[in-house]
């Protein structure tokens, strides 16, 4: 049962991944719709980042995580190296938690 669950989830996930890749050929897309594809991907990633930054399950994530992400985003906007963005975001959240901020 356990192995079946994992295989169904794995095959299903792979099917979702592959079908997007293969579907792209089957579809005849006009120029504006083609332009929309990377925009859609960016929109999904932005939504993913914002929900992950602000929410924990169905509830608000507290203060430490959004603060960490905000520091990272600020550094990214100032064109700081990617490594610095990631480390500063983690360090800010970790230090705030160490100080007792939820």
């Amino acid at each position, binding site marked *: 049962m*356990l192995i079946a*669950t*994992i295989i169904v*989830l*794995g095959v*299903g*996930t792979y099917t*979702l*991944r592959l*079908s*997007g*890749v*293969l*579907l*792209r050929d089957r579809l005849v897309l006009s120029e*504006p719709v083609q*332009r929309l*594809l*990377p925009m*859609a*991907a*960016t*929109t*999904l*990633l*932005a*939504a*993913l*980042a*914002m*929900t*992950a*930054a*602000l*929410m924990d399950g169905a509830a608000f*994530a507290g203060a430490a*995580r959004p*603060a*960490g*992400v905000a520091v*990272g*985003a*600020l550094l*990214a*906007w100032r*064109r700081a*190296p*990617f*490594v610095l*963005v*990631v*480390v*500063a*975001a*983690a360090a*800010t*959240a*970790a*230090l705030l*938690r160490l100080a007792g901020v939820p």
Partner: protein
Amino acid sequence: MRTRKRTVDRALLRDAAAIAAAMIAVGASFGAITIAYGLPTWVPFAMSTVVFAGGAQFLAVGLIAAGNPVAAVIAGLLLNARHLPFGLAVSTTIGDRWRDRLLGSHLMTDEVVAFTLREPDPARRRRTYWLIGVTLFTSWNAGTALGVLLGGATGDPAAFGLDAAFPAGLIALILPSLRDRPTRAAALAGAAVAVLATPVLPAGLPVLCALLGLAVLFIPRLRAASTPAADDRAAAGDRTAAGDRVSGMPAAGDQVSAVSAAGDRAAAVPAVGDRAAAVPAVGDSVSAGPAAAGPAPSAAAGPDRCPSEASC
């Protein structure tokens, strides 16, 4: 030319190493949590190789441990449904060969897509996809193994602030795409929809709902129809210009500042684009230049990007 290519690749390797380190840590916590749930040792390994999707894996082992495998599959697939639009977006990057498509599809994750969309040049985009994809698959599985070995000693990833590292990393990766005004409006509207929907919808659906954010691209077409700039451009092709007209829409601008001040300021870097937004008619004609230059927003943002930008 060759030196520049090498330094650029070194920057990419450094970024890959950063994300790989974070993946090892989170993978370790996945391995440890799975064992702590009392599931067999092979489960985390099977999950990390066969499923290879972090969020869905955490969700699924929780539901499996709670004795609900059907919910685990449904919730996991719902969470992974975003990979279909991702696949559409990166299909040309993966290439035409069957071997590449079959293998490359399995490597597709949020981070890989984000890294890929950041690159304006097709050849570099392809290299980035495979480099990041293989790196993340390796580090995620190495992390999982580490977690199984170390068990509870891996600690809570939240204590290290890793839960803040991933969203921040994603934001850093999509920032270049967000310099394109229509993309930014759609992304911020979509992110707002997703955050608002999170308390009321099951995991996975809110992020899919973000695609509704693309609807903002249609609103300004109605507005812009009355401006002289729009008439000029009607001859150049009505539909191609539609996206640019977002700049004329105050509602999108409001969203932008409400959701993330950082995102909005980012647009100020190319200066012209942001200023132009103050006057809809001017904004329209000004932003027509870069946006019409390339089909992809990342490509459109290309010329503006500074070659010395540490992360590019």
